[in-house]
């Protein structure tokens, strides 16, 4: 049974210049035990697309669509219902472990809060379990670390505390919003390894938001590429990396630095000119057309349907053919 089924999710934020459409008709699903990655540039709506499921996107957001978790609708659920799910069935790890922990409470107490809330444990029992959890996520000397304040720990250790907090009640879904972005590369690898390990041991699903395709390749089973609030491509990770179909995904791949040019000495690292547009209305065209090198008249006047292009791989692009990549390289020597 599908663990999380999100359909046609749209999120608008009111601004002085009118409502901004942060997420535009996003549809995706998560199976139990699966690691799914949402990728895209900053501002493409990937974080909002998952935080809004738990009502964490701030009070001003206007949300429509549906998100069914374990058979129950999450959007527009009561605060009471949501607070019973948060931390117990769906837990979160956020981007910045520096600011995501409360500076005036010890890390041990912050982890213990989850257990006391959802498991109704006494302070002493919770403490014993927290120490086990801290050990589980690879924090050395957990009994001493229990009474440390966040500022007394390194970024990597803090992120491990965040993960300990998230897995305390063995959630069925872990939402990780750029969990490694603020960390050093060596620390990143350790955190990703931990997430994979926890998935293997507990069978929880992971919904990982990132803009780092290296992280995606390392950990994800399935990838969803977002652009300007829309899903533009989705596929099994190997297939998608081997043969990206949407023009935007292709350009993203070309922007990954590779040692020695990835076997091609003449390959130049390319950025994508322009920025993600801020949308007020859902455009009846491909949102990437303005930045796309192969965009045609059709791209600017008609919304490409999200369709299966190869088995297990779908994209919303008018030019998904495999030869288009060379056409791009040819157009920009």
């Amino acid at each position: 049974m599908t663990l999380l089924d999100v359909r046609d999710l749209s999120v608008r934020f009111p601004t002085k210049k009118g409502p901004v459409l942060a997420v535009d008709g996003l549809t995706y699903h998560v199976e139990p035990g699966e690691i799914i990655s949402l990728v895209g540039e900053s501002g493409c709506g990937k974080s909002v697309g998952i935080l809004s499921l738990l009502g964490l996107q701030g009070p001003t957001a206007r949300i429509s669509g549906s998100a069914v978790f374990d058979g129950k609708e999450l959007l527009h659920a009561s605060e009471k219902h949501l607070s019973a799910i948060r931390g117990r069935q769906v837990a979160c790890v956020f981007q910045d472990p520096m600011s995501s922990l409360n500076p005036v409470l010890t890390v041990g107490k912050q982890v213990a809060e989850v257990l006391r809330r959802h498991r109704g444990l006494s302070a002493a029992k919770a403490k014993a379990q927290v120490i086990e959890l801290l050990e589980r996520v690879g924090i050395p000397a957990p009994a001493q670390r229990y009474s440390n304040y966040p500022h007394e720990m390194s970024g990597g250790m803090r992120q491990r505390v965040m993960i300990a907090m998230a897995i305390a009640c063995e959630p069925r879904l872990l939402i990780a919003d750029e969990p490694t972005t603020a960390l050093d590369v060596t620390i990143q690898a350790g955190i990703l390894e931990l997430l994979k390990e926890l998935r293997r041991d507990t069978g929880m699903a992971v919904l990982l938001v990132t803009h780092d395709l290296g992280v995606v390749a390392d950990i994800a089973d399935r990838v969803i590429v977002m652009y300007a609030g829309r899903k533009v491509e989705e596929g099994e990770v190997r297939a998608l990396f081997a043969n990206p179909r949407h023009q935007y995904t292709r350009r993203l791949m070309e922007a990954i630095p590779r040692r020695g040019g990835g076997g091609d000495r003449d390959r130049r690292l390319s950025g994508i000119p322009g920025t993600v547009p801020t949308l007020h209305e859902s455009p009846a065209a491909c949102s990437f057309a303005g930045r796309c090198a192969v965009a045609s008249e059709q791209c600017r006047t008609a919304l490409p349907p999200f369709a299966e292009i190869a088995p297990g791989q779908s994209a919303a692009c008018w030019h998904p053919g495999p030869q288009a990549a060379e056409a791009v390289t040819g157009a920009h020597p």
Partner: protein
Amino acid sequence: MLRFLARLGNALFTLLIATAVVFLGVRALPGDPAVALLGEEGDPAALEAVREQYGLDQPVIVQFVKYLQQIVTGNLGDSVRTGLPVTDVIAGAVPVTLELTVVSMLVAVVIGVTTGVVAALYRGRVAGWVVSVAALIGLSVPSFWLGLMAILVFAIMIPILPASGFVPIDIDPVGHVTHLVMPALVLGTAFAAVIMRQTRAAMLEALTTDYVRTATAKGLRRRHVVMRHALRNSLIVVVTIVGLQLGTLIAGAVVTEQVFVIPGFGKLMIDAVATRDYPLIQGVVLITATAYIVINLLTDLLYTVVDPRVRVTAGEAA
């Protein structure tokens, strides 16, 4: 330890400067204590005798050095008007003002923090608006007017509280409390408004932080998120304000004591200035300056209780 010694040295230097400024200040003002004591028609010889008795005929610098020698032995001189030792006079008035100030502060903190949290949580709604307007009024209304209105309403129109005066606690405990209610509320009002505004601002900021989002994402109940995560961090700001404003509160006590005829420090100060009682003025200012400095030191110490990050910095320095 070094840091503490540096702070202490700093404090003593501040006290010396304050003493010098007041010492010179009162002597630069028009008016002569001898004349204030004996009257304009006083016998010139008698006036001269009084001046000699209090050392006022000597050069100012000599007077100042003598005064400094006196204070380090704990002697603040004798009041020119009553002849009583200044230390005794002040010791009689300080507890009265201290009680009034501390009670006012407690009232202000309880009212200010509560309403500040309400204003932050109900921002943009009726409850938040009402609290904010009330705070603005509390800030704007002068305390002497508020005091007079309070007397008019609660002592005259609805006579439930005594209009003014002071009863020592050992003579009549109940009367002591009833006499304190109105002055404490009046003195605390403006302070409560300041605390409310600071609490509101700090809470609004805290509620948008990542760690409050984390607390919510953990599934904690809203009340728990607000009280334990957001408020706890906001209190750092409140402690600072309480420390900074406590001095202002003592100054406010001067006016409140006048309105309610309370024999405290503030009333003593006004009387001392009115009668050109040099030793008493100097004593009062010296004690006030000391109080300010001690309060600031205590505020620093309180920080370390509320904010663990400061504890580490202090530990590293020591």
